[in-house]
């Protein structure tokens, strides 16, 4: 089991109190799997990916365990985590387009970064060329400054850098949202290629765009207000969603071929709850059309059918 997350709690310390951004989240990621993590803004998906890589104030580790290849990650200890950063867990950030030092040649920056992590550039450089071609970048990029490349090229350079040490877990945080349709497809397919060529053992693709996940993810985890509400294979999530929130979310997404005159789509009324001191029970109950008295107690994430977990009393109740 590549990655196993148990009751992970990551809160933000703010002047007004603790924001429960990721609250008691548990799931596993198999080897060789691309797990899609979807949810709207403020659901905690980015907090999760950042907490595995750079957990520092105002973010605070409140509890839970995360195991990577059998080893428990010392998330609370910033220094000890350094062993895992880049070598075991790596990140392609949302701000990938300006993640490179503008006044340093890319080749030189990579060499210095690798040297600082105890890896010799010469040993890697042939492999580096191979991977640059994989993402349509040629060798000459090494001698250029980041500002000489276009946004898309800088992002692809970061993709190569992030996966250079064959991390066992790669986190990709909203890397396609700022791209044009054509580039989006190419970048998504590159990630799949990275997984197929075993450059990364398993991959978490964080995004708000479920249609992208339908294209490349094996399984999808839906987050809502800091909780994992549903985890299932991609086809099941899009075709037979069980959790009320997932159902409403999927039905509110216009797709090419859906016209207002034929089918008038409907959004979800209201807004996600504030996570400063959230009310008890299911966090979707204020907006949920099928709410009933049991919802005042927090629903567990239960396995309702083969490889399909959902956190809703409606579903868990009848075969729980």
């Amino acid at each position, binding site marked *: 089991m590549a990655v196993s997350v148990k009751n992970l709690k990551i809160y933000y310390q703010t002047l007004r109190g603790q924001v429960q951004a990721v609250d008691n989240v548990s799931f596993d990621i198999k080897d060789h799997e691309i797990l899609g993590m979807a949810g709207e803004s403020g659901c905690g998906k980015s907090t999760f990916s950042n907490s595995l890589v750079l957990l520092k104030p105002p973010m605070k580790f409140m509890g839970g365990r995360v195991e990577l290849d059998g080893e428990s990650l010392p998330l609370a200890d910033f220094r000890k985590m350094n062993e895992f950063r880049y070598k075991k867990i790596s990140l392609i950030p949302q701000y990938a387009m300006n993640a490179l030092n503008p006044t340093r040649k890319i080749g030189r920056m990579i060499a210095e970064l690798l040297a600082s992590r105890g890896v010799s550039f010469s040993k890697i450089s042939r492999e580096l060329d191979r991977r640059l071609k994989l993402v349509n970048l040629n060798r000459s990029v090494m001698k250029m400054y980041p500002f000489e490349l276009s946004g898309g090229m800088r992002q692809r350079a970061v993709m190569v850098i992030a996966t250079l040490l064959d991390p066992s877990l790669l986190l990709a945080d909203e890397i396609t949202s700022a791209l044009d349709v054509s580039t989006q497809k190419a970048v998504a397919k590159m990630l799949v290629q990275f997984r197929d060529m075993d450059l990364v053992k398993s991959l978490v693709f964080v995004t708000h765009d479920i249609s992208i996940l339908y294209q490349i993810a094996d399984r999808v985890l839906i987050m809502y207000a800091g909780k994992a509400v549903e985890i299932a294979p991609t086809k099941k999530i899009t075709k037979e969603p069980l959790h009320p929130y997932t159902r409403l979310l999927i039905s509110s997404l216009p797709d*090419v071929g859906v016209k207002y005159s034929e089918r008038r789509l409907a959004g979800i009324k209201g807004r996600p709850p504030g996570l400063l001191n959230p009310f008890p029970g299911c966090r979707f109950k204020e907006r949920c059309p099928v709410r009933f008295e049991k919802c005042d107690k927090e629903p567990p994430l239960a396995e309702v059918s083969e490889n399909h977990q959902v956190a809703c009393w409606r579903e868990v109740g009848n075969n729980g």
Partner: protein
Amino acid sequence: MVKLRNVTKVYRTGAFGGGKLKAVEDVSLSMEQGKVVSVIGESGSGKSTIGKMILRLISITEGEILVNDKDISKLKGKSLKEYYRTVQGVFQDPFSTYNPVFKADRVFDIIRAEYFSDMKAKKWREKVESSLQSVGMVPEQVLNKYPHQLSGGQLQRLLIARALLMDVDVLIADEIISMLDASTRVDVLNLLIDLKDRGLSILFITHDLSLGYYISDYVVILYRGSIAEMGYTDKVFYNPIHPYTRMLLTSVPRLDQKWEESEEELMETQEIAADSLEDRCKYYDRCHFAAESCGKPELKKVEEGHYTTCPRR
């Protein structure tokens, strides 16, 4: 209602304005009463520039824009102020459209001070409240609040209510829902559809094909400042002619079918400067059917209500 004839916009770039960037080149389109026209294009396609030109926020370099058969570039002072009673706009980032220092409903107060200063307070409040109701909002929940206390969806609806206060005929919606959460987007789209049914003509600017398809009767596909394809939405989406449109339709991620294998290899939009393709179809460098005969693009009729500038068709 609104007619654009061979509109071109060239930006000065560089410290002394040496460089030239042709953001929009020779675009002609028209908007009818009670119809939604979608302008779909990726970043750098000039779609927002067109919106801003119609709203007279930036000047036009060549060509003309006629609203109710009046050339808007001639409007000055008073006449320009009156123009804004017929045309209004809503922008992409709600949190940048509101002056952070003031309460959100100050946007109404400005309208009152500029256009309805003689109206009595009570009558004005009724007019505001009815306008808020018409966009599906409860006045008490949204009035007297600072922008950061409201959601993106609410802020955008407030702007639409503001436009309704001026009882405009044309609304320019420039990417108004791309910053909103997926679940609340559709309600704003449905609001636009209701307004369209009440006779408002809307220019819906977006980069998202599925939104464009969902809402519009007529669609204009832009690529690097020029029209690639234009026509009734169903015709363009179900019988795409221009290779760029076809590439878009194969690349957009769908919820019901996987990406088709298309041999579109990766190309950076900004890499080739637009004017180096001076007398060429703008898609020449990425097109798989490109040939010598691909000269300067002109709009050609493919079928009733369906045009393209692909020279080979």
